[in-house]
């Protein structure tokens, strides 16, 4: 059972799409799993043949459970289906339904009078360890961690709880810093108007696609904002997978990844974004789309907000937010004129980068939006 984000604890197998003996290739969808975020298609990460299916339809199992065994076609080795995606161990801590507490932690908690229900476990299977209790004891007076989510609740409240847990963890663990900068969008909008004029209707672009591309390529200049914070260290990602925050109709939020956004042209990005938005709302996202994002972009301009100050989605280290593009007074060469302006913000993890570098990213994004034809 792959972890499909920092907030996922368990999933229920809805459907097997392959049977023992079937040949599978990397990228094939082999199963559908139901999570707090909806039904997710599980991809396979190895070429080979299905040996055994280990989980029955309807079974709910914690993250990390082997779903199926795949026998490699050439090597004869077996591998588990859909192993948790590599770069995010910190995101894959299942919160067990029963409180798992190591013996040492239990004794320490008893000695110091610590309420174990308020301690977050980091040990094997999410168990509370001696160190976790020590940390909790040191931080008395701090808000208690959210209780583990129980299954069975309806989808919306389960998703609410999952978002809450991930965001609470982010705010608890990540020392955020925030920067904002105003970007002149005249050049981009003019180019986009002309471009959409000549594009057939299905190929027209939304401004957000240019924003995503600008963020993705700007990260080449400031790579320390693209990746994960795991095991006390920054792990930069060579690939840029941009998580796009998509609000769901009826509430909730999901941020699936556009893979390799820095290397895709605008038409492809637009197609991908349209496809992701549709599938996010239909509940047919794939596991890699939920687990792979190396940075998140959120755009609340549609709702008229001026600027957004987001909470980083762990274990990522940065989030770029955009407000609405609106005509505002702008001083250029001593004259006040109306121009289309956009406020871009950066929320970044101070453990991984400093404000100076964060400022360089916003600057790089802004520069790219002055020459939209190069995006």
């Amino acid at each position, binding site marked *: 059972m792959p972890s499909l984000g920092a907030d996922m604890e368990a999933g229920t197998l809805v459907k097997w799409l392959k049977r023992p003996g079937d040949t599978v290739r990397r990228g094939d969808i082999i199963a559908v799993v139901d999570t707090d975020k909806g039904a997710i298609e599980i991809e396979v990460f190895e070429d080979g043949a299905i040996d055994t299916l280990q989980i029955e339809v309807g079974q709910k199992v914690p993250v990390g459970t082997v779903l199926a065994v795949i026998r490699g076609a050439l090597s004869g080795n077996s591998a588990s289906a859909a192993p*948790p995606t590599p770069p995010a161990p910190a995101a894959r801590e299942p919160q067990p339904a029963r409180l798992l507490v190591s*013996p040492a932690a239990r004794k320490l908690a008893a000695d110091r009078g610590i309420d174990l229900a308020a301690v977050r476990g980091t*040990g*094997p299977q999410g*168990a509370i360890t001696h160190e976790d209790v020590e940390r909790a004891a040191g931080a008395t007076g701090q808000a208690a961690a959210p209780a583990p989510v129980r299954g069975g609740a309806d989808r919306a409240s389960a998703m609410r709880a999952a978002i809450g847990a991930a965001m609470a963890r982010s705010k608890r663990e990540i020392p955020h810093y925030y920067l904002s900068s105003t970007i002149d969008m005249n050049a981009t909008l003019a180019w986009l108007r002309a471009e959409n004029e000549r594009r057939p209707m299905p190929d027209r672009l939304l401004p957000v696609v240019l924003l995503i591309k600008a963020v993705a390529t700007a990260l080449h200049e400031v790579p320390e904002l693209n990746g994960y914070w795991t*095991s006390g260290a920054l792990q930069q990602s060579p690939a840029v997978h941009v998580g796009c925050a998509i609000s769901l109709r009826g509430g909730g939020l999901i941020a699936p990844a556009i893979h390799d956004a820095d290397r895709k042209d605008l038409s492809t990005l637009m197609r991908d974004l349209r496809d992701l938005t549709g599938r996010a709302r239909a509940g047919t996202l794939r596991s890699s789309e939920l687990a792979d994002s190396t940075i998140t972009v959120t755009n609340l301009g549609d709702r008229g907000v001026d600027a957004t100050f987001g909470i980083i989605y762990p274990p990522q280290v940065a989030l770029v937010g955009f407000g609405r593009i609106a005509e505002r007074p702008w001083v250029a060469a001593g004259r006040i004129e109306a121009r289309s302006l956009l406020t871009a913000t950066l929320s970044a993890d101070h453990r991984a980068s400093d404000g100076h570098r964060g400022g360089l990213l916003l600057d790089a994004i802004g520069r790219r939006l002055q020459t939209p034809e190069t995006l």
Partner: protein
Amino acid sequence: MITTTYREAIRAAIREALTKDARVFLMGEDVGRYGGAYGVSKGLLAEFGPDRIRDTPLSESTFVGAGIGAALGGMRPIVEVMTVNFSLLALDQIVNNAATIRHMSGGQFSIPLVIRMATGAGRQLAAQHAHSLEGWYAHVPGIRVVAPATLDDARGMLWTALEDPDPVLIFEHQTLYNMEGQLANNAQAVDLDRAAVRRPGKDVSLITYGGTLGKTLQAAETLAGEGIDAEVIDLRTLRPLDMPTIAASVKKTRRAVIVDEGWRSGSLSAEISARLVEQHFYDLDAPIARVCSAEVPIPYPKHLEDAAIPQPPAIIAAARETMGRRG
């Protein structure tokens, strides 16, 4: 310091014992003219003569029994058994006689016998020459079981074993004989009581002995690169176990991985795990992990043999697991 090998260190220990104590003699299959199945006693026949370097018939029960008799009679025999697999032919002598006579005689007789044998896999000697059965002997009261994993122990354990009034079994891992390293010119006899901390660390205790010590130290180095500071304990003596040293380590790290080339079921690793849980339950932060051999007769083909016995990746994975990390 001198550069030497594990094999030469044992030979030097035998030579020293033969020189210092006239009661000492070496006996076993091919130890004389051939120089020993693993070449340990090469040259000793020429140096000490056929009375003290004695080739025996291929009958483990006979020559181990003869060793017990000689020890009873006041000698200090060193009996070499080619491998632990073959020692099963002498199991009756070792378990029913050597281990019991002090008790059966109400303390009137003791058996100051040393039995050396090769153990373990890794040299493609297949299922009848490559098992790790030292854990079975560690089950038996009345004998001491040791496993030198370093040159110092190869050089220093024999003399201390000979001084013990009761039987001592020395297990030499096949893959160690060619191990080369530095040894002090004046290397001394060493104790047979204490486990040794071969690498200090604070995050997880890796407990091992004999042939897997090197692999475990290798795993610890890799783990260090990931920010996991592993402590490596070399048991040295498998019976009696030095629980205070093991416990002190686990008390500090709160996590234990036991690496044992024996099979998992009913193994020495099971015994250590059970004792930690019995005596130190409230010091533990994670389930105890074990890395053991696959439950099959040790295979002959190289890749299968490698796959059957503990290797660094499995040790690393087990250690990560105790830290709550995966992958």
